[in-house]
């Protein structure tokens, strides 16, 4: 006599296997559709702008603007600080009137965020020979600074355009429109710096 409950279990398992197989087929992509090098997360989600010679010659900074309006500020590859052979050795957020790394922004409404002008100082980056002031470039509320740079200033040397970002600022829509005109797009910047 056949045990029907065993049959039922086998049928169920078979069904589940079939489901798994068809699921798997949907998951695996066609390799021919895949680009050799895909766009990076930054390229896909941000529009890159550049502020060359910001308040001082050679002080090239970038502004990555997200579709939601937030701006990531950092040092462009052509920044004069990178010309020092020692590279960046230290980052200090204690500039201007307060230590920028000490501010705690809380809540959806971003309470306690400090408002800065585009030429307000964000931090100082030091090499063996000199130190350079990094500024906001964009007028707005300072949401966070990259305090990992304090312990790992070397991030700037290798990954200034990603993990070595300096800060995140939230400008008001009107303020962004005002500053946008003075920034360069990626192509213009490349042409200017011939890179």
């Amino acid at each position, binding site marked *: 006599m056949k045990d029907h409950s065993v049959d039922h279990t086998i049928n169920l398992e078979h069904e589940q296997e079939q489901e798994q197989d068809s*699921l798997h087929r*949907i*998951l*695996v*992509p066609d*390799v021919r559709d*895949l680009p050799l*090098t*895909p*766009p*990076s*997360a*930054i390229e896909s*989600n941000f529009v890159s702008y550049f502020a060359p010679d910001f308040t001082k010659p050679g002080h090239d900074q970038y502004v990555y603007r*997200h579709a*939601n*309006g*937030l701006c*990531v500020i950092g040092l462009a590859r052509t920044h004069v600080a990178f010309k020092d052979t020692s590279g960046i050795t230290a980052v200090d957020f204690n500039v201007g009137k307060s230590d920028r790394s000490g501010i705690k*922004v*809380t*809540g*959806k409404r*971003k309470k306690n965020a400090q408002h800065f002008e585009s030429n307000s100082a964000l931090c100082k980056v030091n090499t063996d020979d000199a130190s350079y002031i990094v500024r906001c470039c964009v007028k707005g509320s300072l*949401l*966070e600074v*990259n305090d*990992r740079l304090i312990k790992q200033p070397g*991030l700037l040397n290798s990954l200034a355009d*990603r*993990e070595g*970002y300096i800060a*995140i600022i*939230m400008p008001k829509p009107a303020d962004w429109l005002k500053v946008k005109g003075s920034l360069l797009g990626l192509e213009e910047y490349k042409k200017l710096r011939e890179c």
Partner: protein
Amino acid sequence: MANANTNNTEAEHVSIDSEAAHVISAVEECHDDDDVGALHDVVQGLPSHAVKDLLSVGVCTRCILRLFGIRGNIYSISAISPSILNSVIGEQRHGEDISSNSKESEFEEVLCALCLGILQFTYCDDKEIPVKKESANDMAVAISELVKREGYQIDSFSLEVSVPPIILENEHSVRLYMKRKYGTEPWFQGGPFSQSISAKDALKFSLAKPLETLLDCKSGISNFRIGLTFSHKASKVVQSVAVSKQGCKRIKTGNSIDSLDDSVAGDIKCSDLADATVERSFDGLQDNESSECFKFPLQKVNDACHLVLLCQRTPIYFGGRYLKYSRNVSQTRWIIDDERMGEASVEEIIGSNIQPLCQGDNYKFHAAGREDIDVRMLGSGRPFLVEVQNAHRIPSEAFVREIETNINNLENKLVGVKNLKVVGIEGWTMMREGEAEKQYAALVWISRPLEDVDLDSISSLKDMQILQGTPIRVLHRRSPLQREKIIHWMKIERIGGSSQYFLLHLCTQAGTYIKEFVHGDLGRTHPSIGSILGCRAEILQLDVTDVKMDCFLTE
């Protein structure tokens, strides 16, 4: 046959509309002789002088009955009229028979000073036209016609009545007056007045049985509510502040009067929080104090109450699991500046296939979590609830299966549905149950060729804790926080023909941002796939392959 006079009276008393007459006689047949006999017995037992007193003050027959705490289906008997009480009064006063008879019949035309005509089935409809129904049954007919006109398919109903607060005020005045005048008499000591039925409940007693017959279903706890709201311009704001606070509260207790034994007495006595509060506030006043506050005799009223009849079904719920096959469909309707994001939404596809089949007023979509517009929802699917408001019809099981098939057979195959069925309130608790683990499949690219050792270093990580700063892409609308999340397990599946692309299968704690875990979000999520493998990692595609929850699974 009898003389002409009697014939005319009889003709007037019976309703004109033949259909109604047929129904009336059908209803009256429901009342056994026991009921009518019981009515007569009850009436005989009432103290005649007190009854006469109340009649003279302008209280209608049903109000008199309810003040004495009489309960039950007898309220719907159309034979209730002042003439019934005559037998009580008449017997005591032989001499004044003829004259008191004619006086009594006048009261039928005057609005009851206590219930403002509510228990005389007299009211103004929503067009401000005065209506006087000859009997409880006539009023029940009007109600049942509304239910049928609006096309509700029902298998039960619950009656809800709301009356103007002045009625409670009046009742208190009457009770005080009666206590003061007859408090010492033996029949009062038994405490019949403390067993009084509220006007609301008397009306429900009147209408319940006829409605059950007309609508062919039972009254009691039901998701279909027939609401009768009476209001009156002259209704003053009652002294008690508590009433205005509590007046709008609704208790979800069933007002079951389908069984009329004493066990239900507790429900009926305090059927509404507003009433209970008003009663409490009245009880609290000293008898001496209140004599200044309340007027007696009661004010005569010339206008009937305004009645609003409203039929409503409480929301019904459809539960199931949905799948999303498209990377261009959002979960809910998403419109920015008059432009829709994506080509459709799961909410609209499912809701628009359910709501019309229930003939509901509108629907709400609830899901257990969500996924981005460009993320597919595959595998077992994600639990969801569709709440339909004021459904006029409730689809059968077979019909619900048809709805599921319709959605799954839509031409554009954007969304699928599994295990769709009507669920009760337990659907909510199932959805809310804890935070479920989720399983994903991500298409990942790394900046160097994949090595065998990588597969091991990834698989060996179990219940790994990561720290995620609020992703930049949502930082504009969420709190800046560091969130600890757990990655339960991970597995790399190589893709034939590629050295730098692979499928990453992973199972994580609820609330983990997967995309950021892969690319690191500029170092704000740590560890990340990139940091673990020591290179740059990018995510091209993400699919949810399992939502590990117990609800709405295939049985």
